[in-house]
């Protein structure tokens, strides 16, 4: 599904130059569930942003769905991203001014779906995530677990091939954390590729494979289980 070759990312600010990623070589197969672990500041989010086509690498190659995307323009990346990648963030990143329904609807809006189709699909996903009864609530009125389910609903609404989750359980208590992991596992079992950053080994163990990142490069990998056939 995706493969990086000697991926590099430099951040240059006025004072310092930070090497956030250094020669990262990573390959992820379709249907895989990969967890990324590592200390704070080792480049996990940077890697996820590049894999998610939110940012361009400073060097190296990145093949995504057979496209060489490291030189893509912002617009090209955005088009590829819209229909193929869903995001789940630690802090949920729901828009406070929009209702649950409207938050989940957003990606479909940007993909140009008709109103009736949007409604139908959002309702279905909200049922699936068991938050349909909250559809007219605003994010602030929900618990953290509920908010993250809304975020997951939003991430999968456009049926992406790949879901990137950056510490999705970071702001949740363990019960809600479990719940989100179950959701992700379920999605993975239905064929969605998942790459997830996490600090907790107990959550990383839901994945097929754990990649350890340190100081911008991959130091080791654990294979936990083989991928179930899709």
């Amino acid at each position, binding site marked *: 599904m995706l493969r990086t070759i000697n991926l590099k990312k430099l951040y240059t600010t006025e004072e310092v130059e930070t090497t956030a990623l250094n020669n990262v070589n990573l390959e992820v197969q379709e249907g895989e569930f990969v967890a990324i672990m590592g200390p704070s500041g080792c480049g996990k*989010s940077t890697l996820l*942003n590049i894999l998610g086509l939110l940012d361009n690498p400073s060097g190296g190659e990145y093949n995504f769905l057979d496209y060489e995307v490291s030189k893509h323009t912002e617009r090209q990346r955005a088009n590829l991203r819209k229909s193929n990648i869903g995001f789940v*963030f630690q*802090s949920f*990143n*729901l828009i*406070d001014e929009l209702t649950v329904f409207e938050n989940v609807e*957003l990606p479909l809006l*940007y993909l140009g779906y008709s109103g009736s189709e949007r409604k139908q699909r959002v309702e279905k996903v909200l049922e699936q995530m068991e938050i349909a009864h909250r559809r007219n609530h605003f994010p602030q009125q929900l618990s953290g677990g509920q908010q993250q389910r809304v975020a997951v609903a*939003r991430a999968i609404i456009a049926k992406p091939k790949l879901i990137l989750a950056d510490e999705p359980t970071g702001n949740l208590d363990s019960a809600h954390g479990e719940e989100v992991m179950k959701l992700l596992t379920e999605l993975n079992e239905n064929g969605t590729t998942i790459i997830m950053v996490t600090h907790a080994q107990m959550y990383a163990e839901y994945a097929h494979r754990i990649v350890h990142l340190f100081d911008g490069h991959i130091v080791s990998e654990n294979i936990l289980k083989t991928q179930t056939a899709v």
Partner: protein
Amino acid sequence: MLANYIKIALRTILRQFEIFTIQFVHGDPSNALSEPFSVVITEETAQRYFGDENPIGKTLLYDYQHPFTITGVVRSFPPQSHFHFDFIASMESTKSLFPPVMFEHWGNIWLYTYVLLSPDTEAPALEQQFAGFMEQHMPEAARMINLQFHLQPVTDIHLRSHLDIELEANSNIIYIYIFTIIAIFILAIACFNFINLTTARSASRSKEIGIRKTIGANRPQLIRQFIGEAIVITFIALLLGILLIELMLPWFNNFTGKTLSLSSFTNGVALTGLLGVVLIVGFGAGIYPALFLSSYRPVEVLSGKSSSGNARNHALLRKGIVTFQFAISIALIASTIIIYNQLTFMRTKDLGFDKDRILIVKLNNSGARQQFEVLKESFLNHISVLKTAAASHVPPEQLSSWRIRHESEPSDRFELINVMSVDYDFIELMDIDIIEGRNLSRQFAVDEHEAILFNEAAVKHFGLDRVIGARFDLFQGLKEGTVVGVVNNFHYESLHSEIMPVFLHIWPQWYSQILLKIRPENIQQTVLDIQEIWQAHITDWPFEYRFLDEDFDRVYRSEERFGQLVLYFSILAIFIACLGLFGLASYSTQQRTKEIGVRKVLGASVSTIVMLLSKEFTKWVLVANLIALPVAYYVMNRWLQNYAYRIEIGFDVFLFTAAVAFIIALVTISYQSIKAALANPVESLRYE
């Protein structure tokens, strides 16, 4: 004697110096004008004629023939007087200069009468007695003239009097009101910016406030501090403002033709007033931010829970303020457009005659008046002169009026009708249409003595079945008139005034100017040649000329200045309002950084984001339009009532204004919204 000719302005004939405070430099105020043919002149006039010599006892000739002895030299009236003079001649002199009818007939209202009331006299009470007074003094025969006397305070004349034949062109109080309102609005816009920016910036001061409160400052102390700051800022603004006035005054005076100076502010009243404005503005602009800032609770502020909830409550106020600011700007834009439309309308309206390329040569002395036909002939011989004519008045000059009476009416039923004395060539030169009957013509011997032309308004006024051939008594037996033709309603005055009835007739005594229709090429050379021809005939009077179209343009100069000033004020108001909008846009996009980031991650394009951010402001500008446009319509419609001939305020003006406002608003916020939309979402979501 009369070495150099300089225009004699024998405009004001006063007997006494008791009513007007006139300062004598030479001569004795008590008897300066008691003798006939004595004249008092201003210092400037004395300088012009006699240089540094003392002019007392010297003589000036009025119109070739009448010597006036100079009995006094006085200071000119200051610029703000409602009239000005170069000469004041004694009232006694007029008895020899004017025919008796000027003094005997009650309808001859050629004097401006000033009365000095004793301090305990009420003007309205005195006015009430005028009717009885007239009854007592007016002979029976004069009663039907329908004269009424009114009093008006001298200080009201310049701004509030709109009578015909004023001593000098007056202004209108409505301009003072309009500019006062505009000034208040601009000040309000600036105050609102202050309020907006101070509260928006409050986050950065919240820490200071928290600390102050923790160490014991109470709310009233903080409120006083913030209002104090606002007043100090306003005071500094006042000083800068005075500096700006000093720098801009020469330009402004030049532009408006006034002689204002900063010294108008250095009296006690003005200074107290200015300080009062500083206090009011400082307090007005400071009170809301003061209440807002001092309401922070120190624990929340210092624990970093900050004011985002608080801020949301105040977002509505900010938007309301920007809406109001835009409303003012929109009203000003619409007004500017309407004023310019009216100006263009007045400049381009068909006047009923062709005003282009008409050179007017003034018959400024009796010598020239006597040989006007010779002058006409000689001018016409010039290759560039196509037509010549003579007339008593040339548009847009104020006409005289005569009392005229249809022969079927009783001898005391006359009407006051405007009159133009013209020669046979006038109608053709001016290209005025004859719509009934015929033009004045040399082919009819009677024309010289009795033919008159009516305009359509006169025809309507008299309502005769057959107007051609109708006979009138002119000027009470001075002359008989027979209507030979009707001309279209041409605009013999500016478009301020409605076209009133007028009659035209042959009356050479009154011709005061020669009109020349000239070729469009080489106009400058033509004027020089005409001057030479003049000098060949008239050796001792200067050649005075002007162009008819320029005269017409000049009538609208005050409107033009008004339009320009409103334009400048609109630009200023828009600029300040845009600063406010810019501030609000940067504040609001900053608030929405995260949202924008999320939307981009989810696939929103740059244009979608820009649209999203613009949509909100568009809504407020729309509201501003809805507030401003009816107000502009109302005020401008009132202004247009000053003009007998005016434009209809069309819907297109408002559409255009709304479009301009939207474009200005969008451009103003585009910097912020495009910047926000282009920002890398990774950045905005990074600090989770």
